[in-house]
């Protein structure tokens, strides 16, 4: 008695359950018509679809599935649970269709190490906002299934031999992978994919990753993040995103500080093309479209969209999370500084080799000026055959000004959120509202055990705790929360109001 199982976005756990009996297991992939994927860039599309045997069905899953259930006589539909909000909606809809057609849906998690809903449950229904927090929560969850347990149910070659995939003669015509041209990409002048995809490649990469050092050598004595830690980071971002369909947006995203990032499409275009005038940034932005590997750092939403288009491995939540993190819009860590493209470049790549590799126009500059060529005297520019402003762009933004401004703006925003009015910088970063599992915002229990140092008046008298998991040992006397002349402010209600509603205490200035 055969079983027809159609894995949707095939993967091991639920597919394993189907294998073991003889059945047909065509592997297929529904036509992805989620608007986000319009951002998928050339490199990424190649990576995902080459070297695998796929049926690409064009059309909305909701329309296509009922037909396929019948046509292929499907009895089982193994699916992976989507943790991202748009995926969850899709999951629910498909489950409905499948059960209506009499097919059993086998849903297993494969994208994440842990059950994200369980993690959030342990954290009072909210995603943890610091890495330390998620570490603590995971220690309370059951340990992961060890691989050995799965070995017995591994898909063996005997098992899979019993599975056949009926391929008709016109398979490629009916179900072949859309060519790049079909999808509207310009393929002229495209070099062959530098990073071939497929599972075998992935495994090779994993091996290499475990032993390779990062391109930018950090320092010989510092330890790279272990693979487990990196996976845990991935988990962290997935959890934060899972119930938040607006994770990749600023507005309407309760996790994201509403920063007034400047909309400047001109500056953004320059940045995307590698024309900011900062060699370090431009080299990164040159490497990216050429090879598809992300070099982080750079308004974060727009940055994120650009990267999603160009980055091979862009999981949605991680992408959004990293961007928010790096632009310090969320997660309330003390990233109190902006990365200086000049200084960072100088420290991590003192010889300038990376820049020279991706920006050949700057090769003539000595190491002293390679990170800030605009400061090089004209004589040196001439010798290097590269005049700034002619052969290489002038600075898109004056960094000195920009970093000074940025810290002022970030402090402004943090102050609004934390209501801290004192002179300290570290103290103005708002604390993690998820501490102790309750979404109480800046409730009494969050006030830290810090000394209200007798010799200095602190303005507000309080330094807010900004570190995630600090155990509170004692409360401090705090300013009385009061409604100053009773106004909640004459502002236009913005998303800031939502965040402010979570604040329980307003700290007043002591005069």
């Amino acid at each position: 008695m055969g079983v027809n199982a159609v894995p949707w976005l095939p993967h091991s756990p639920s597919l394993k359950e189907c294998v073991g009996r003889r059945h047909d297991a065509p592997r297929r992939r529904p036509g992805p018509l989620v608007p986000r994927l319009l951002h998928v860039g050339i490199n990424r599309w190649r990576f995902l679809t080459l070297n695998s045997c796929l049926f690409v069905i064009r059309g909305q899953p909701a329309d296509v599935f009922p037909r396929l259930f019948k046509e292929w006589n499907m009895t089982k539909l193994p699916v992976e649970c989507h943790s991202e909000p748009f995926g969850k909606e899709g999951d629910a809809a498909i489950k409905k269709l499948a059960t209506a057609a009499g097919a059993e849906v086998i849903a297993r998690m494969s994208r994440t190490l842990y059950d994200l809903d369980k993690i959030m449950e342990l954290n009072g229904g909210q995603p943890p906002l610091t890495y330390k927090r998620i570490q603590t929560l995971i220690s309370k969850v059951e340990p992961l299934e060890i691989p050995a347990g799965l070995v017995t149910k591994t898909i063996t070659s005997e098992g899979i031999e019993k599975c056949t995939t009926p391929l008709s003669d016109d398979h490629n015509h009916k179900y072949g992978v859309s060519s790049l041209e079909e999808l509207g990409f310009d393929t002229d002048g495209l070099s062959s994919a530098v990073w071939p995809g497929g599972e075998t490649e992935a495994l090779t990469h994993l091996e290499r990753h475990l032993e390779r050092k990062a391109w930018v050598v950090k320092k010989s004595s510092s330890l790279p993040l272990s693979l487990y830690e990196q996976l845990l980071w991935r988990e962290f971002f997935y959890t934060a995103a899972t119930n938040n369909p607006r994770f990749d947006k600023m507005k309407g995203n309760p996790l994201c500080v509403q920063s007034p990032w400047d909309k400047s499409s001109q500056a953004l275009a320059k940045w995307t093309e590698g024309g900011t005038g900062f060699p370090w940034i431009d080299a990164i932005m040159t490497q990216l479209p050429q090879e598809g590997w992300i070099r982080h750092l750079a308004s974060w939403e727009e940055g994120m969209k650009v990267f999603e288009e160009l980055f091979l491995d862009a999981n949605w939540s991680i992408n959004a999370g990293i961007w928010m993190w790096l632009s310090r819009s969320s997660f309330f860590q003390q990233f109190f500084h902006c990365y200086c493209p000049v200084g960072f470049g100088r420290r991590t790549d003192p010889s300038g080799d990376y820049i020279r590799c991706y920006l050949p126009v700057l090769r003539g500059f000595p190491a002293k000026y390679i990170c800030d060529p605009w400061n090089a005297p004209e004589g040196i520019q001439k010798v290097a055959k590269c005049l700034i402003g002619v052969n290489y762009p002038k600075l898109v933004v004056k960094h000195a000004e920009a970093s000074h401004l940025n810290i002022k703006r970030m402090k402004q925003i943090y102050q609004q959120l934390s209501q801290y009015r004192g002179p300290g910088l570290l103290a103005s970063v708002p604390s993690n509202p998820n501490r102790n599992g309750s979404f109480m915002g800046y409730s009494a229990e969050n006030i830290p055990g810090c000394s209200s140092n007798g010799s200095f008046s602190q303005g507000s008298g309080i330094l807010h705790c900004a570190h995630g998991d600090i155990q509170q040992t004692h409360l401090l006397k705090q300013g009385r929360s009061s409604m100053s002349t009773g106004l909640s402010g004459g502002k236009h209600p913005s998303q800031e109001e939502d965040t402010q509603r979570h604040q329980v205490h307003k700290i007043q200035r002591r005069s």
Partner: protein
Amino acid sequence: MKRNSLSVENKIVQSSAAAKQPKLGFYSSLNQSHMHTVLLDWGHLPHHVVLRIFQYLPLLDRARASSVCRRWNEVFHIPDLWRKFEFELNQSATSYFKSTHPDLIQQIIKKHSAHLQYVSFKVDSSTESAEAACDILSQLVNCSIQTLGLISTAKPSFMNVSESHFVSALTVVFINSKSLSSIKIEDTPVDDPSLKILVANNSDTLRLLKMSSCPHVSSDGILCVADHCQGLRELALNYYILTDELLLALSSETHVNLEHLRIDVVSENPGQIAFHAIKKHSWDALIKHSPRVNVVMYFFLYEEEFEMFFKEEIPVTHLYFGRSVSKAVLGRIGLNCPRLFELVVCANGLQPLDKELICIGEHCTNLTALGLSECEVSCSAFIKFVRLCGRRLTHLSIMEEVLIPDEDYSLDEIHTEVSKYLGRIWFPEVMPLW
């Protein structure tokens, strides 16, 4: 509206009958003739109750509520609700945020400008927004504003407004308010003459003045403020207008104790600005007069520009190095900043800062907050530092890659050791590098 009978029925009926309601003739006659039988509803709450409720509502909800009935509409316009307003001025081309509606702005200027006391303007990076703010300012003639804030949320767009336009708008408020106590005008083209006008009209009331990054102000301009505004408690400015005379003026006998002094030390191009020195004697005078003052210094300099800083004792309490700072300078900080409370170093380099950090731990006995990134400290030195400071370190924000494991300590051990000395669980800051 739901019709609920209120428990304080009698009282409310009496008060509503007694309250002056010239426009609501219908209601008052209704009350008088049906005093005990009429079902009281939300529309009959006394003004002060509705006012109290409105005070909890954001503006949009309040505005909606004001359309419910005439009574509530009256309450909406009670002056108490218009003491504080923040004008948000954004252009959709440059900002993700919405603006305060122009009709609302007009209404406020017409009906409520006399009530305004705490006013702020939030503008995006477009010049139009800044100009709109100036236009509103010029119309605030009949106000007694106490707090004024001009806030650029992104690029300093006020700097693109013509100086004369800006100054004339600002001085309207300076002249007419006569009770300004708190002014925030950072990143604006304010100049010395406008400061003179400010002083001439508000010298008794001025307590806070934030004007860092105002390139048209000179040291004379700010000295004028310090001389005449004896109640000034908080000041923020750039280093280039800080002088010995200013510190002495702020420490004169008749001057109140200064609470907060923030100094931005900024340079654009390396080697182009020579920084002047402030004499130790001036700092001493300041501390003698105001022993509890916070002195906050933000440095955005290139390494070679630090030459003359920290050569002598300086009473700084909060230090922030926004760019790279050299090992040598960090070494001087330990020896010359006895009042240091918070230190944040954004970047240094690849040489370990062990000695410098321990020196700071030994001498800066008030240090409670430390932030380190893009530099190196060996684990043993770091532990020694933490041991020196102990539990007074309430904020310890160290990027993980700063800590270099050595024979004595690995990164895991650091976490337990430091937590032990701090008396709380502590981890270094981690950033996901992919």
